[in-house]
């Protein structure tokens, strides 16, 4: 296979960046998308040109490190598939592809296709957890969890934190990411005590990070490689409303350390 790539090259946050054209030959249909980029990078290095920077690690679709916009779609054309699991057999011979980083104010570009997603970590730190000090846990089977609830919590917990939802959203909102965590923990009995505080703190943090608001486009769900449903956004909105309309709004406080 032959391909024409237009790759976003940007040396750092202050560089305005530009597309550069690369012709790639001898692409095998059995290659993964990242293996195709590996081959190109080896060629660039052998010509003493600078290789294309992109994040990747597990290459099994679970670590969430990889991700780029391919012809306008985060993670490319295949439904429910991360960039690393996308294979070249999905593209016709001679295809012309435009590769860009996630574009969002809250995800500044580090270099080329690499962005800084630490805002997601700060969202989790703001409330995306259940406070369960090591050593304090009760016997696991003391709390029964209906299979239906456990399964639905698992559907939400499957989020890999890649950021495709943000990249796909016209508002660069992180609603699907936050909703997935709020729902995962809020569906379980263990997550009830902090349910109100969690949703309020995470939504506040989302605003502080510069993510946009949700206006129900549904692009996030279409781009999500783990098929996280926007039903969870409805669940987040309900939880947020319940928490903020409650007689005493939850006080922002950290109960982290001992």
């Amino acid at each position, binding site marked *: 296979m032959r391909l024409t790539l237009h790759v976003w090259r940007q040396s750092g946050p202050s560089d305005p960046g530009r597309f550069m054209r690369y012709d790639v030959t001898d692409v095998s249909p059995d*290659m*993964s998308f990242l*293996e195709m980029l*590996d081959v190109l990078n*080896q060629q660039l*290095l*052998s010509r*003493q040109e*600078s*290789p294309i*920077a992109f994040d*990747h*690690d*597990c*290459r*099994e*679709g*679970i*670590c*969430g*490190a990889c991700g780029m916009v391919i012809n306008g779609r985060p993670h490319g054309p295949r439904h*429910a*598939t991360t960039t690393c699991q996308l*294979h070249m*057999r999905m593209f016709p011979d001679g295809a012309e592809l435009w590769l860009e980083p996630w574009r969002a104010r809250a995800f500044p570009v*580090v*270099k080329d296709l690499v962005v*800084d*997603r630490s805002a997601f*970590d700060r969202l*989790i*730190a*703001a409330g*995306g*957890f*259940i*406070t*369960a000090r*090591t*050593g304090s*846990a*009760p016997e*696991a*089977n003391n709390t*029964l969890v*209906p*299979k239906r609830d*456990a*399964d639905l*919590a*698992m559907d939400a*917990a*499957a989020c890999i934190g890649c950021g495709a939802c943000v990249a796909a959203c016209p508002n660069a909102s992180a609603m699907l990411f936050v909703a997935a965590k709020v729902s995962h923990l809020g569906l*379980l009995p*263990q997550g009830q005590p902090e349910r109100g505080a969690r949703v309020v703190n995470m939504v506040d943090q989302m605003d502080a990070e510069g993510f946009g608001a949700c206006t129900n486009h549904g692009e996030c769900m279409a781009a999500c490689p783990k098929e996280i449903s926007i039903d969870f956004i409805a669940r987040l909105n309900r939880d947020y409303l319940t928490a903020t309309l409650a007689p005493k709004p939850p006080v922002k406080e*950290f*109960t*982290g*350390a*001992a």
Partner: protein
Amino acid sequence: MMELRSRAPEGPLAEKWEHHRSAIKLVSPTNKLKHHIIVVGSGLAGASAAASLAELGYTVSCFCFQDSPRRAHSIAAQGGINAAKNYQNDGDSVHRLFYDTIKGGDFRSREANVYRLAETSAQIIDQCTAQGVPFAREYGGLLANRSFGGVQVARTFYARGQTGQQLLLGAYQALERQVGAGKVTMHPRAEMLDLVVVEGRARGIVVRDLVTGAVASHVGDAVVLATGGYSNVYYLSTNAKGCNVTAIWRAHRRGAAFANPCFTQIHPTCIPQTGPHQSKLTLMSESLRNDGRIWVPKKKGDARPPQQIPEAERDYYLERLYPSYGNLVPRDVASRRAKDVCDEGRGVGPGGYGVYLDFADAIARLGRHVIAERYGNLFEMYERITAENPFDVPMRIYPAPHYTMGGLWVDYNLMTTVDGLYAIGEANFSDHGANRLGASALMQGLADGYFILPYTIGDYLAQAKLGKLGTDHTAFKQVEREVSERVDRLLTARGRRTPDVFHRELGRLMWDKCGMSRTAKGLEEARKKILELRDEFARDVYVGGRGEDFNQTLEHAGRVADFFELAELMCRDALDREESCGCHFREEFQTPEGEAKRDDARFSYVAAWEYAGAGKAPVLHKEALAFEAVHLTQRSYA
């Protein structure tokens, strides 16, 4: 002179840990605040340790090379986590889990550590459930279990095929809670490039900021390495691309003994290679062996599609050779038998290095929906990679490097031979002997991080009487200089071959000579060739770009350089161990049936290697393994 003191407590096996925990020194709550602990790595072991230490009141700094601690490779573990809960009432117990683990490891692990692991297992499930890990449940709301290779009870807890992900997110969330509370400072995209030892004690690390390239020191009262395994020495493995040996190798060079480096696990169920572009191998969870049947054609070179090969012309070789365990034999056995049938010319798929894992019978027996519920996400992943649907045609699988039982030598407190330096999770050698059983890695990582290290580290800190140090101390300045020089050397070589080219060549060599099957001759050849390659690397590598930049080729080059040194030690260790045990299979030492033949009289020890300086032969120290509670037997799964 290095001394190996296991510090395994006296007394009956079942009382050792309880007794030890009550006897070791404690650090008072006010003093905990004053101690700064450095944790390198944020996988199951690192994240759980960093979170638990911070909850206890210590000040913690945690480092990872990924952009977020949530991406550590523990996330990719699929199958599950063992615990001796006996929820299935099938006769499981702490002793049984202990025995299965020590037998699975072919009697090459330390009894006291393994027992403690089994003892701690139940608590891990409680802890993770309390954090909101969505384990699979039965309709009545109780936790569900399944069985795994090498055992005859169902003690494995799981969250679909994403158990590692869910356990890691639990630990990551606990960690982020402490970040939010200001108790942990997280340093993502930071790679530890060296350890700083002052007056015989680990006092800090030197890291390179992977975004700016800046090299900087961090001072601590103790350093915990939770940096995972080194399967990527083979280039192609199931590990993430970034997994590397650098942190523990640099610690080894600073005085930490490296134990059993040749004990590397080759996992039987991975997707076969497709071509020279292959960048990694993908694991298909071992849980698939619960319902899938492994077979190859009886006839050599039988190229018919699998559906056209009649039942009578198939060889279900594991069921034939091991009637009581069948497809659930331990990983080392399943891998070697797959290699045997492929070497005989009966392998399937392009290149002939694959065997079938067939679900047709299970689908007929249980229905498609049951199989879909159990393995749906794995089947989808297989289909995405191979363009074949396992509901219609059998999967093709082949063994691949997956896990390294070897690692830094640690005592019962998980401390290495350098005072104040700890190694936890896959980075240490302690619990799996010569072969790890399925669903035990997650158990060990979390046992070390949540329930063992947080206690044992206090024993050292309470007694160490550490003085105040700054990064301006000469020892730190010296190590920083050495790190910068190493980085510069890689950048200034300006040769013709990329680090990737060298890494692939090293990997192929190790796979051929120090992989599933080893001989004295092959290992000697490999050692020689490694040294040649290493010299070529130093002269002829091309990295390009600058050090003060985000430079992924430079990161890779540094890791490959350390893999070269490790590879040589692996071959030396494999050569020295003139027996076969678990995953270490020396062709010269086998039973008439082709099983691993141990030599307990000569090799019932842990081989702990001391670094003796560049170009000098490392010194072997032996920790004799004494077994009080188990009787050493030849493993039999027939």
